């Protein structure tokens, strides 16, 4: 891959993206930890397994969104390999989005089930 170095202004933009991505990753991890903790408080076995599974998926999502961060950091800290690093970071980000789609799908299914449970009188509320 060609040798190319981003300018200072371009590096600033890469850093802004890296920072926002890092914060989103930590929020997914926080949500996963809360979900795992909540799983131990659920009495019903099925609901407990669903909560546990959601917690693990959210932790995995946090980790996946953290994967491109290393390459974004290398763009800023190394010289001449910026294109290679940005392409790897984009590939990792693409994988993270793919997993997020699956998790969002599960979340939508969960919301639909909860609406049905509410109407049948056995919802979480």
């Amino acid at each position, binding site marked *: 891959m060609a040798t190319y170095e981003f300018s200072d202004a371009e590096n600033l933009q890469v850093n802004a993206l890296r920072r926002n991505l890092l914060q989103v990753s930590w929020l997914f991890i926080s949500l996963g930890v809360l979900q795992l903790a909540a799983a131990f408080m659920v009495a019903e076995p099925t609901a407990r397994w669903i909560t546990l599974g959601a917690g693990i998926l959210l932790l995995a999502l946090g980790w996946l969104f953290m994967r491109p961060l290393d390459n974004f950091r290398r763009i800023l800290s190394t010289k001449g390999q910026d294109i290679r690093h940005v392409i790897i970071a984009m590939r990792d980000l693409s994988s993270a989005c793919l997993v997020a789609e699956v998790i969002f799908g599960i979340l939508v299914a969960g919301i639909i089930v909860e609406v049905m449970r509410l*109407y049948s009188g056995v919802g979480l*509320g």
Partner: protein
Amino acid sequence: MQSTTQPRVEHEFDFDEEEIIVGLSESLYRFAIMCGVVGIALVGLGAAVIALGAYGGGLAGPGIVALGLVAAAGALLFIRPRASFDQILMTQGRDITKLIQGMRSLSAALGTFRWILGIFVLIRAGSFLLARMG
């Protein structure tokens, strides 16, 4: 003394690099769609909570509806970077400028998404604490 500043020659992405950019562009689009679907589902849940007076009534229902609307609106932000990334493929030259434009849009989208996710975390933490105290 005359200045001889030369314009910077931007990198032009090759076929393999463009394939990865297309992949990200399509993933972001699907991510945006799914984020919007979550928003609509939350609006539906909120409406059910309001109609049935579930979750203790009060602000729970309107809160879920508001969160759903914010999530659906936030989803639109993830569609914007796609235009910049697609420009890299459809046009010749200035690939890095378009890449940086795409990154700027993506960064803005993540900035908004961070707030939505932050509210989710706070709600989850609140419900966890309430359950612990109950």
